[in-house]
């Protein structure tokens, strides 16, 4: 038996049990048959009772018949004949008496309890003991590419859990009665339920469980900011590191895909109505999937020549392999969604025109317009918006130039302005394309960095320098108007304002220059106005984002819905998907009423 298995108490762990009084073992092994052997009293009769020694395997045999639901009056040690009934503990399931034995686990001897009621499938630890054991399992790390190798390639950095690591990690979950993790998930995935299935080695079932609420788990497992969502709320996190929920999600989704367990559902009912989805980002894809599965005929219009939105043109290959995005899109094609590429809605077809042919429209065009700081010298050559820089790299495959036609923006000394995922992706792309020195300049402190913790960690490992509390104030150019430096000023956090936040303020006379021959501005994005040019009656807020009803995502035009970054401003993949789901439900409700 693997010592680790006992230590971490996985499902079906073989239990070594001992009498608390005489310390004799209850484990008996005859040929291949392993049992725990006790003496029992039932209706004033003494008899033998044997139980399965495997955790959570509920098999028992008795020398006399015991009626289902009846209670044994005692359970005794066959060696010392002492009663094992616990005075303090009652069954966690049915409240009956329990017998207390000792098991060796987590390198310790720990009390373990067996319910005396026939049919009550409860034998376990007290919650306190269970916690002690769980706390012994360290949070599992994902194996990943070595940092010195990966900066020379564009392959994904983490390899993902093996099934052993995934099972160990799943074993850490406390299966809380009031799990907080679910509240932390923007689409309320039933996290304890999928982890429970994993503990039963049903990885496929676990994947299906997640998909009830989240249609793109392989993607979310990789890019969601779990540390500020489910994992931030995880109850284990109060005492130890939280359960690695994102990594488990990624594991089961990858398992389902690699084992080819994804089934294409047969859509039985066809609804004779058409849905147009504008934009193929995660929000648009969610609406398309939900509506197609309901039986609607769905067409997605995408402005670019490839599908996937930011998943394809923004997030780099080393963080989200394009084959995974492609797999999800293929699934949509299989369920009958039609895709029209190179269709810039607003330019070639207006929303009004779409409404003439389609019964409802979803706008999920994202926030793809770059924002610049508006400081001096931003027009020098080699000052890129992150949008352009990453689009060239990812969508146009500039890093494969000249195999692909787009030249790569290359710099020896690169500065990236901003502290979000976009900034990390830009900096890490630069280091992979041979830049000698890459510096991230961020105006606030480490605590406020909006990027996922894992991306910051990876960026640091890859040698990217962080200039925190540093604000760019001006670009410096060569005689040929190419950027050659960035003048910055050091910042400090000022007094807390009314909202309690400490804003960064410049430190007088602390200006200095960072030399650079390429700068990437990644401070945020705004809404692209193209789609609105022909639809002035679509109500927008002062930032230019669409106004939509929170409960239905319907806009100011009836049957035109919107969600994702075009409503919220740049946010997250899961939020865009959540909005897509709300919109799909509302659309279906409204269109069903028309019949």
């Amino acid at each position, binding site marked *: 038996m693997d010592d680790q298995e006992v230590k971490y108490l996985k499902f079906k762990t073989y239990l070594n049990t001992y009498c608390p009084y005489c310390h004799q073992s209850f484990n008996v092994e005859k040929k291949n048959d392993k049992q725990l052997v006790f003496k029992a009293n039932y209706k004033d009769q003494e008899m033998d009772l044997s139980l399965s020694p495997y955790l959570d395997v509920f098999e028992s045999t008795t020398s006399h018949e015991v009626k289902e639901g009846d209670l044994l009056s005692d359970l005794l040690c066959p060696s010392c004949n002492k009663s094992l009934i616990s005075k303090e503990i009652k069954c966690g399931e049915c409240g009956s008496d329990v017998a207390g034995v000792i098991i060796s686990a987590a390198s310790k001897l720990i009390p373990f309890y067996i319910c005396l009621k026939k049919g009550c499938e409860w034998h376990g630890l007290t919650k306190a003991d269970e916690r002690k054991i769980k706390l012994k399992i360290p949070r599992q790390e994902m194996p990943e590419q070595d940092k010195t190798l990966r900066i020379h390639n564009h392959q994904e950095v983490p390899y993902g859990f093996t099934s052993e690591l995934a099972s160990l990690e799943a074993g850490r979950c406390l299966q809380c009665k009031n799990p907080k993790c679910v509240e932390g998930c923007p689409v309320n995935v039933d996290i304890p339920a999928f982890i429970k299935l994993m503990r039963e080695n049903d990885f496929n079932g676990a994947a299906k469980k997640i998909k009830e609420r989240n249609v793109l788990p392989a993607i979310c497992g990789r890019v969601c900011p779990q540390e500020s969502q489910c994992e931030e709320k995880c109850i284990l996190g109060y005492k130890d590191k939280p359960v690695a929920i994102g990594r488990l999600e990624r594991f089961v989704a990858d398992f389902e895909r690699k084992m080819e367990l994804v089934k294409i559902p047969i859509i039985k009912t066809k609804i004779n109505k058409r849905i147009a989805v504008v934009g193929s980002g995660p929000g648009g894809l969610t609406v398309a999937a939900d509506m197609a599965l309901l039986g609607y005929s769905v067409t997605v219009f995408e402005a670019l020549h490839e599908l996937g939105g930011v998943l394809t043109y923004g997030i780099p290959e080393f963080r989200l392999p394009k084959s995974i995005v492609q797999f999800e899109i293929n699934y949509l094609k299989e369920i009958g969604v039609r895709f029209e590429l190179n269709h810039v809605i607003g330019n070639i077809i207006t929303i009004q025109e779409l409404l003439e042919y389609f019964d409802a429209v979803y706008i999920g065009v994202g926030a793809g317009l770059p*924002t610049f700081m508006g400081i001096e010298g931003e027009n020098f050559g080699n000052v890129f918006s992150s949008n352009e820089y990453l689009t060239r790299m990812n969508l146009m495959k500039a890093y494969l130039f000249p195999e692909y036609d787009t030249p790569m923006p290359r710099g020896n000394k690169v500065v990236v302005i901003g502290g979000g995922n976009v900034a990390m992706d830009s900096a890490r792309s630069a280091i992979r394309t041979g830049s000698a020195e890459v510096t991230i300049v961020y105006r606030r402190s480490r605590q406020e960095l909006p990027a996922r913790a894992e991306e910051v960690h990876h960026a640091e490992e890859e040698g990217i320098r962080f200039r925190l509390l540093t604000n760019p104030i*001006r670009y410096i150019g060569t005689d040929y108007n190419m950027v050659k430096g960035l003048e910055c000023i050091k910042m400090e956090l000022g007094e807390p304002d009314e909202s309690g936040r400490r804003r960064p303020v410049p430190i007088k006379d602390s200006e200095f220059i960072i030399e650079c021959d390429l700068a990437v501005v990644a401070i*945020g994005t705004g809404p692209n106005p193209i789609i609105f040019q022909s639809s002035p009656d679509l109500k927008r807020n002062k930032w230019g984002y669409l106004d939509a009803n929170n409960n239905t995502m319907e806009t100011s035009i009836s049957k035109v819905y919107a969600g994702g970054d075009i409503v919220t401003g740049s946010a997250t993949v899961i939020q865009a998907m959540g909005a897509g789901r709300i919109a799909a439900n509302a659309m279906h409700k409204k269109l069903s009423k028309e019949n």
Partner: protein
Amino acid sequence: MNEFKSIDDILDFAINSEQEAIDFYTKLATVAKTDAIKEVFTDFAGEEAGHKAKLIEIKKNGSFGVITEKISDLKIADYVVNNQPSPEMTYQDALILAMHKEKAAFKLYSALADRAPNADIRNLFLMLAQEESKHKLRFELEYDEYVLREN
């Protein structure tokens, strides 16, 4: 500084400046392309009207508070290049414009305070300068929160 003979002169000047700002934003509101931006400029004009009313009140009562409170200066306006007003302005452009206007007013009143002939006039200019820096801070906070979201 000859034209400022009295406290009332100064207040009239300041009230007049606020009126100019109201007119400026109202005009931008009428030419702005989208409803949301029209509303932004109408709001800015409304805020300036509030400042003007405050000054009229001071003139009427003949008293103003001496400044003790320290207004923080994020200095965003110091480094962001100003833009020209146009009907296509976005909210970011509008904020930049407003920050620069408030900063210019702050600088003017501060300079006037430096050259004030007596303590009363100096205090009044300082008060006006501080008001303007409060207004600038309001725009800078908005800029800090939304435009520089990931920076």
